[in-house]
């Protein structure tokens, strides 16, 4: 599964994307796996209310299932326009 990071999530984790092998059933489980890895992930995912997630380029919530998903993206609330 491809995992992408944008804005300060990318900066805290220190890379824009990576391939992750996971058996996580939901986004929330994937986040727990990533947080357990290293401090930089812990720092990025410390407050889920400050994050948004997209599955295959559609906004979803953290309880969404990962089955069949190829691309997960984590980022802060958008500030376009």
């Amino acid at each position, binding site marked *: 599964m491809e995992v992408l990071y944008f804005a300060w999530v990318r900066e805290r984790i220190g890379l824009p994307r990576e391939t992750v092998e996971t058996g996580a059933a939901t986004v929330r489980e994937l986040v727990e796996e990533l947080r357990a890895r290293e401090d930089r992930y812990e720092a990025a995912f410390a407050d889920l209310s400050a994050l948004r997630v*997209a599955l295959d*380029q559609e906004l979803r919530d953290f309880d969404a299932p990962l089955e069949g998903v190829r691309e997960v*993206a984590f980022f*802060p609330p*958008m*500030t*376009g326009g």
Partner: protein
Amino acid sequence: MRVVVQQEPFDFGAEAEAFARGQTGMGAVVTFTGVVRDLDTGGLEAMEIEHYPGMTQKAIAGVAEKARDRWSLGDVLVIHRYGRLAPGERIMMVATAAPHRKDAFEAAEYLMDYLKSRAPFWKKEITAEGADWVAAKDEDEAALDRW
């Protein structure tokens, strides 16, 4: 419907003119242009805009489709830049055409409200002191409630 996501500047006057000229049977054309504004405290050197290439076009087109379902519209145009912009540069524009002014205004405001909070762009302000990601404003999230 035309959705453009690009690094290069766009020609606002020419885009607005071409958009308006392309409409038939539309009594009203509304445009909105967003401009990089200096900080209230001054000192902005640049605005850096990051986006999510695979998702951006799709997210904007989705919002534009919803606007067309909701209002009686002619065409819709959205142009949004990314990369490094200087104060005074234009970040983005939307244009809407409709038979009547109310629809054209509402659709343009709807597009702007959704682009602000639902299209995957992130702004970073660069000053002599460093760089700061712009925080999303509660009022921008609240603006979605009226639709």
